[in-house]
Protein backbone atom coordinates (compact mmCIF):
# COMPACT_ATOMS: atom_id res chain seq x y z
CA UNK A 1 0.00 0.00 0.00
CA UNK A 2 1.49 3.30 -1.08
CA UNK A 3 0.65 6.42 -3.00
CA UNK A 4 1.81 6.16 -6.60
CA UNK A 5 1.62 8.66 -9.43
CA UNK A 6 -1.13 7.73 -11.89
CA UNK A 7 -0.94 10.71 -14.23
CA UNK A 8 0.19 14.31 -14.28
CA UNK A 9 -0.33 17.56 -16.18
CA UNK A 10 1.94 20.58 -15.68
CA UNK A 11 -0.23 23.05 -17.57
CA UNK A 12 -3.82 23.26 -18.83
CA UNK A 13 -4.83 22.63 -22.43
CA UNK A 14 -7.67 24.68 -23.91
CA UNK A 15 -8.30 26.19 -20.49
CA UNK A 16 -8.70 22.95 -18.55
CA UNK A 17 -6.82 19.97 -17.10
CA UNK A 18 -8.30 16.96 -18.84
CA UNK A 19 -7.44 13.33 -18.11
CA UNK A 20 -9.80 11.50 -20.48
CA UNK A 21 -8.28 8.08 -19.96
CA UNK A 22 -7.11 6.92 -16.53
CA UNK A 23 -6.63 3.33 -15.39
CA UNK A 24 -7.74 3.34 -11.76
CA UNK A 25 -8.84 -0.25 -11.22
CA UNK A 26 -6.03 -1.11 -8.81
CA UNK A 27 -6.64 1.84 -6.47
CA UNK A 28 -8.97 1.96 -3.46
CA UNK A 29 -8.48 5.71 -3.17
CA UNK A 30 -7.42 8.42 -5.58
CA UNK A 31 -6.03 11.79 -4.56
CA UNK A 32 -6.11 14.77 -6.93
CA UNK A 33 -3.47 17.34 -6.01
CA UNK A 34 -4.07 20.72 -7.67
CA UNK A 35 -1.46 23.46 -7.29
CA UNK A 36 -0.81 26.96 -8.61
CA UNK A 37 -3.90 27.20 -10.80
CA UNK A 38 -4.54 30.67 -12.21
CA UNK A 39 -7.67 31.89 -13.96
CA UNK A 40 -8.70 34.33 -16.67
CA UNK A 41 -11.64 36.08 -15.02
CA UNK A 42 -12.12 37.45 -11.52
CA UNK A 43 -14.47 35.26 -9.48
CA UNK A 44 -13.92 32.01 -11.34
CA UNK A 45 -15.46 28.75 -10.10
CA UNK A 46 -13.26 25.66 -10.23
CA UNK A 47 -15.19 22.49 -11.08
CA UNK A 48 -14.43 18.77 -11.18
CA UNK A 49 -16.13 16.24 -13.45
CA UNK A 50 -15.51 12.53 -13.95
CA UNK A 51 -15.46 10.27 -16.98
CA UNK A 52 -17.32 6.97 -17.03
CA UNK A 53 -16.94 4.65 -20.00
CA UNK A 54 -14.80 7.24 -21.73
CA UNK A 55 -17.50 9.90 -21.57
CA UNK A 56 -17.42 13.02 -19.41
CA UNK A 57 -20.38 12.99 -17.02
CA UNK A 58 -22.02 16.42 -16.87
CA UNK A 59 -25.10 15.77 -14.72
CA UNK A 60 -26.21 14.17 -11.43
CA UNK A 61 -23.64 15.75 -9.15
CA UNK A 62 -24.20 17.12 -5.66
CA UNK A 63 -21.72 19.29 -3.79
CA UNK A 64 -21.43 21.36 -0.65
CA UNK A 65 -18.72 23.51 0.83
CA UNK A 66 -18.06 25.67 3.85
CA UNK A 67 -15.50 28.46 3.55
CA UNK A 68 -13.65 30.74 5.86
CA UNK A 69 -11.68 33.79 4.79
CA UNK A 70 -8.75 35.77 6.12
CA UNK A 71 -11.28 38.58 6.60
CA UNK A 72 -12.87 36.39 9.31
CA UNK A 73 -16.03 35.87 7.22
CA UNK A 74 -17.68 32.49 6.57
CA UNK A 75 -19.80 31.11 3.78
CA UNK A 76 -21.69 27.88 3.09
CA UNK A 77 -23.06 26.81 -0.27
CA UNK A 78 -24.30 23.68 -1.99
CA UNK A 79 -26.29 22.18 -4.83
CA UNK A 80 -28.15 18.87 -5.12
CA UNK A 81 -28.44 18.86 -8.92
CA UNK A 82 -25.43 20.20 -10.72
CA UNK A 83 -23.30 19.49 -13.81
CA UNK A 84 -20.09 19.21 -11.73
CA UNK A 85 -18.57 19.23 -8.26
CA UNK A 86 -17.60 22.78 -7.39
CA UNK A 87 -14.33 23.11 -5.48
CA UNK A 88 -15.20 26.71 -4.66
CA UNK A 89 -18.58 28.41 -4.16
CA UNK A 90 -21.36 29.61 -6.45
CA UNK A 91 -20.76 33.12 -5.10
CA UNK A 92 -18.08 35.00 -7.11
CA UNK A 93 -16.93 36.75 -3.95
CA UNK A 94 -15.94 33.29 -2.68
CA UNK A 95 -14.27 32.17 -5.92
CA UNK A 96 -10.80 32.59 -7.39
CA UNK A 97 -9.38 36.00 -8.23
CA UNK A 98 -7.42 36.75 -11.39
CA UNK A 99 -4.92 39.32 -10.14
CA UNK A 100 -1.23 38.59 -10.37
CA UNK A 101 -0.28 36.47 -7.37
CA UNK A 102 -3.75 35.01 -6.92
CA UNK A 103 -4.36 31.32 -7.49
CA UNK A 104 -6.02 28.08 -6.45
CA UNK A 105 -4.93 24.79 -4.95
CA UNK A 106 -6.74 21.76 -3.56
CA UNK A 107 -6.43 18.18 -2.44
CA UNK A 108 -9.40 16.04 -3.44
CA UNK A 109 -9.83 12.49 -2.15
CA UNK A 110 -12.03 10.04 -4.10
CA UNK A 111 -13.02 6.74 -2.46
CA UNK A 112 -13.33 3.51 -4.44
CA UNK A 113 -13.19 5.19 -7.86
CA UNK A 114 -13.92 2.03 -9.83
CA UNK A 115 -16.72 0.59 -7.69
CA UNK A 116 -19.71 -0.38 -9.80
CA UNK A 117 -22.00 -0.46 -6.74
CA UNK A 118 -21.39 2.89 -5.03
CA UNK A 119 -21.95 6.52 -5.92
CA UNK A 120 -18.58 8.29 -6.05
CA UNK A 121 -17.62 10.58 -3.13
CA UNK A 122 -15.00 13.31 -3.40
CA UNK A 123 -13.97 15.11 -0.23
CA UNK A 124 -11.73 18.13 -0.58
CA UNK A 125 -9.88 20.97 1.03
CA UNK A 126 -9.14 23.89 -1.25
CA UNK A 127 -7.13 27.03 -0.56
CA UNK A 128 -7.22 30.05 -2.83
CA UNK A 129 -7.17 33.81 -3.11
CA UNK A 130 -10.51 35.49 -3.68
CA UNK A 131 -11.23 38.49 -5.91
CA UNK A 132 -10.82 40.90 -3.01
CA UNK A 133 -7.38 39.55 -2.16
CA UNK A 134 -8.53 37.63 0.90
CA UNK A 135 -7.34 34.10 1.41
CA UNK A 136 -10.10 31.50 1.44
CA UNK A 137 -10.12 27.92 2.67
CA UNK A 138 -13.03 25.72 1.60
CA UNK A 139 -13.86 22.35 3.09
CA UNK A 140 -16.22 20.46 0.81
CA UNK A 141 -17.81 17.30 -0.45
CA UNK A 142 -19.24 16.19 -3.75
CA UNK A 143 -20.82 13.07 -5.12
CA UNK A 144 -21.48 11.81 -8.60
CA UNK A 145 -24.73 9.84 -8.51
CA UNK A 146 -23.43 7.29 -10.94
CA UNK A 147 -22.29 3.74 -10.17
CA UNK A 148 -20.04 3.46 -13.21
CA UNK A 149 -16.29 3.06 -12.80
CA UNK A 150 -14.38 6.32 -13.14
CA UNK A 151 -11.84 6.24 -15.95
CA UNK A 152 -11.04 9.91 -16.35
CA UNK A 153 -11.52 13.35 -14.86
CA UNK A 154 -11.42 17.03 -15.73
CA UNK A 155 -10.61 20.16 -13.73
CA UNK A 156 -12.06 23.24 -15.40
CA UNK A 157 -13.27 26.72 -14.54
CA UNK A 158 -16.07 29.11 -15.40
CA UNK A 159 -13.26 30.97 -17.16
CA UNK A 160 -10.23 29.37 -18.80
CA UNK A 161 -7.52 28.10 -16.49
CA UNK A 162 -4.21 29.63 -17.53
CA UNK A 163 -1.54 27.78 -15.50
CA UNK A 164 -0.99 25.26 -12.74
CA UNK A 165 -0.34 21.59 -12.16
CA UNK A 166 -2.58 18.62 -11.46
CA UNK A 167 -1.26 15.31 -10.15
CA UNK A 168 -3.34 12.15 -9.82
CA UNK A 169 -2.16 9.78 -7.09
CA UNK A 170 -3.53 6.32 -6.45
CA UNK A 171 -3.47 4.31 -3.25
CA UNK A 172 -2.86 0.74 -4.26
Amino acid at each position, binding site marked *: *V*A*WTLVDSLSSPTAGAFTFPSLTLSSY*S*TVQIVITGVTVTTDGTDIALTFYVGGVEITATY*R*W*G*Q*ASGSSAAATN*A*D*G*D*VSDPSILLTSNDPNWDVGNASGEGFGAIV*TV*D*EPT*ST*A*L*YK*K*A*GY*VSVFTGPTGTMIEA*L*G*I*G*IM*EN*TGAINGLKVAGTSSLTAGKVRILG*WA
Partner: protein
Amino acid sequence: MAWELVSGGSLNSPTAGVFDFASLTLTGYEAIQIRMSGVTVTTDGTDVFIRFYVGGSEISTGYRWLQGALSTSAAVNTDSSASATGILLNSNDAAWDTGNAATESFGCTITVPNPVSTALHKRAFGEAWMIAPSGNALTQHVAGIMENTGAINGLIVRGSSNLVAGKVRVLGLAP
Protein backbone atom coordinates in the same frame (compact mmCIF):
# COMPACT_ATOMS: atom_id res chain seq x y z
CA MET B 1 10.60 9.89 6.76
CA ALA B 2 7.63 8.40 4.96
CA TRP B 3 4.23 6.86 5.46
CA GLU B 4 4.33 3.08 5.31
CA LEU B 5 1.78 0.35 5.81
CA VAL B 6 1.83 -0.83 9.42
CA SER B 7 2.37 -4.57 9.69
CA GLY B 8 -1.05 -6.18 9.80
CA GLY B 9 -2.67 -2.82 9.09
CA SER B 10 -4.81 -3.73 6.08
CA LEU B 11 -8.30 -5.22 6.01
CA ASN B 12 -10.33 -5.58 2.81
CA SER B 13 -13.60 -6.38 4.55
CA PRO B 14 -15.08 -6.36 8.06
CA THR B 15 -15.43 -9.46 10.21
CA ALA B 16 -18.56 -9.80 12.35
CA GLY B 17 -19.49 -6.23 11.43
CA VAL B 18 -16.26 -4.53 12.51
CA PHE B 19 -12.72 -3.86 11.31
CA ASP B 20 -10.63 -5.19 14.18
CA PHE B 21 -6.88 -4.55 14.36
CA ALA B 22 -6.46 -6.11 17.78
CA SER B 23 -2.68 -6.28 17.71
CA LEU B 24 -0.60 -3.61 16.00
CA THR B 25 3.05 -2.86 16.64
CA LEU B 26 3.25 0.92 16.48
CA THR B 27 6.55 1.50 18.28
CA GLY B 28 8.72 3.84 16.23
CA TYR B 29 5.87 5.63 14.48
CA GLU B 30 5.49 9.34 15.20
CA ALA B 31 1.91 9.23 13.91
CA ILE B 32 -0.49 6.81 12.32
CA GLN B 33 -3.10 7.48 9.66
CA ILE B 34 -6.30 5.47 9.36
CA ARG B 35 -7.79 5.48 5.84
CA MET B 36 -11.23 3.98 5.22
CA SER B 37 -12.91 3.67 1.84
CA GLY B 38 -16.22 2.29 0.61
CA VAL B 39 -17.53 1.37 4.06
CA THR B 40 -21.18 0.34 3.90
CA VAL B 41 -23.59 -0.17 6.79
CA THR B 42 -26.60 -2.28 7.73
CA THR B 43 -28.97 0.34 9.11
CA ASP B 44 -29.88 3.78 7.82
CA GLY B 45 -28.24 6.51 9.91
CA THR B 46 -25.37 4.43 11.28
CA ASP B 47 -22.64 6.03 13.41
CA VAL B 48 -19.10 4.96 12.56
CA PHE B 49 -16.60 5.23 15.41
CA ILE B 50 -13.14 4.10 16.45
CA ARG B 51 -11.71 2.80 19.66
CA PHE B 52 -8.13 2.01 20.58
CA TYR B 53 -6.50 -0.94 22.30
CA VAL B 54 -4.12 -0.41 25.21
CA GLY B 55 -2.27 -3.36 26.72
CA GLY B 56 -4.21 -5.70 24.45
CA SER B 57 -7.62 -4.54 25.69
CA GLU B 58 -10.20 -2.51 23.78
CA ILE B 59 -10.76 0.78 25.62
CA SER B 60 -14.46 1.65 25.75
CA THR B 61 -14.55 4.66 28.08
CA GLY B 62 -12.81 7.99 28.49
CA TYR B 63 -13.27 9.45 25.02
CA ARG B 64 -14.26 12.95 23.93
CA TRP B 65 -15.10 13.94 20.36
CA LEU B 66 -16.41 16.81 18.27
CA GLN B 67 -17.44 17.35 14.69
CA GLY B 68 -18.45 20.11 12.32
CA ALA B 69 -20.33 19.00 9.22
CA LEU B 70 -21.63 20.39 5.97
CA SER B 71 -24.17 18.85 3.60
CA THR B 72 -24.61 19.19 -0.14
CA SER B 73 -27.88 20.87 0.86
CA ALA B 74 -25.64 23.62 2.34
CA ALA B 75 -26.94 22.88 5.84
CA VAL B 76 -24.40 22.74 8.67
CA ASN B 77 -24.27 20.74 11.87
CA THR B 78 -22.07 20.50 14.92
CA ASP B 79 -22.04 17.91 17.68
CA SER B 80 -19.79 16.74 20.49
CA SER B 81 -19.46 14.62 23.59
CA ALA B 82 -17.23 15.02 26.63
CA SER B 83 -17.86 11.48 27.87
CA ALA B 84 -18.14 8.87 25.15
CA THR B 85 -17.41 5.21 24.52
CA GLY B 86 -15.46 5.91 21.32
CA ILE B 87 -14.51 8.65 18.88
CA LEU B 88 -17.43 9.25 16.56
CA LEU B 89 -16.47 10.03 12.97
CA ASN B 90 -19.85 11.61 12.27
CA SER B 91 -22.65 12.94 14.46
CA ASN B 92 -25.00 11.58 17.10
CA ASP B 93 -27.83 12.78 14.85
CA ALA B 94 -28.87 9.97 12.49
CA ALA B 95 -29.65 12.47 9.73
CA TRP B 96 -25.92 13.32 9.75
CA ASP B 97 -24.70 9.73 9.66
CA THR B 98 -24.21 7.12 6.92
CA GLY B 99 -27.12 5.81 4.88
CA ASN B 100 -27.69 2.17 4.02
CA ALA B 101 -28.89 2.41 0.41
CA ALA B 102 -26.92 0.27 -2.02
CA THR B 103 -25.01 3.26 -3.39
CA GLU B 104 -24.26 4.94 -0.04
CA SER B 105 -20.97 4.62 1.83
CA PHE B 106 -18.49 6.14 4.28
CA GLY B 107 -14.81 7.08 4.01
CA CYS B 108 -12.29 9.06 6.02
CA THR B 109 -8.69 9.91 6.71
CA ILE B 110 -7.86 10.13 10.42
CA THR B 111 -4.45 10.99 11.87
CA VAL B 112 -3.34 9.95 15.34
CA PRO B 113 -0.11 11.60 16.55
CA ASN B 114 2.14 10.01 19.17
CA PRO B 115 0.29 6.70 19.32
CA VAL B 116 2.71 5.02 21.72
CA SER B 117 3.35 7.92 24.08
CA THR B 118 2.95 6.91 27.71
CA ALA B 119 2.65 10.54 28.82
CA LEU B 120 -0.01 12.00 26.53
CA HIS B 121 -3.71 11.45 26.01
CA LYS B 122 -4.23 10.22 22.43
CA ARG B 123 -5.63 12.64 19.87
CA ALA B 124 -7.30 11.80 16.56
CA PHE B 125 -8.37 14.26 13.90
CA GLY B 126 -9.25 14.33 10.24
CA GLU B 127 -11.95 14.44 7.59
CA ALA B 128 -14.81 12.01 6.99
CA TRP B 129 -17.07 11.84 3.96
CA MET B 130 -20.33 9.95 3.67
CA ILE B 131 -23.67 9.79 1.93
CA ALA B 132 -26.45 10.35 4.45
CA PRO B 133 -29.91 8.73 4.60
CA SER B 134 -31.29 11.77 2.72
CA GLY B 135 -29.00 11.05 -0.25
CA ASN B 136 -27.01 14.19 0.41
CA ALA B 137 -23.26 13.87 0.85
CA LEU B 138 -21.65 15.14 4.03
CA THR B 139 -18.16 16.29 4.83
CA GLN B 140 -17.31 16.24 8.50
CA HIS B 141 -14.24 17.61 10.24
CA VAL B 142 -13.76 15.41 13.27
CA ALA B 143 -11.49 15.32 16.28
CA GLY B 144 -11.35 13.29 19.45
CA ILE B 145 -9.20 12.21 22.34
CA MET B 146 -8.82 9.07 24.38
CA GLU B 147 -8.05 10.18 27.93
CA ASN B 148 -5.60 7.39 28.47
CA THR B 149 -1.82 7.62 28.59
CA GLY B 150 -1.22 3.99 27.65
CA ALA B 151 0.52 3.11 24.40
CA ILE B 152 -1.91 2.20 21.64
CA ASN B 153 -1.37 -1.32 20.34
CA GLY B 154 -4.54 -1.81 18.32
CA LEU B 155 -7.70 -0.18 17.05
CA ILE B 156 -11.17 -1.16 16.03
CA VAL B 157 -13.65 0.49 13.67
CA ARG B 158 -17.24 -0.10 14.72
CA GLY B 159 -20.69 1.08 13.73
CA SER B 160 -23.94 1.50 15.59
CA SER B 161 -25.06 -1.17 13.13
CA ASN B 162 -22.85 -3.82 11.54
CA LEU B 163 -20.38 -2.65 8.91
CA VAL B 164 -20.96 -4.64 5.75
CA ALA B 165 -18.07 -3.92 3.38
CA GLY B 166 -15.15 -1.58 2.80
CA LYS B 167 -11.42 -1.30 3.28
CA VAL B 168 -9.34 0.06 6.14
CA ARG B 169 -5.60 0.76 6.00
CA VAL B 170 -3.37 1.83 8.90
CA LEU B 171 -0.25 3.72 7.88
CA GLY B 172 2.62 4.73 10.13
CA LEU B 173 4.92 7.73 9.82
CA ALA B 174 8.36 6.25 10.20
CA PRO B 175 11.36 8.41 11.14
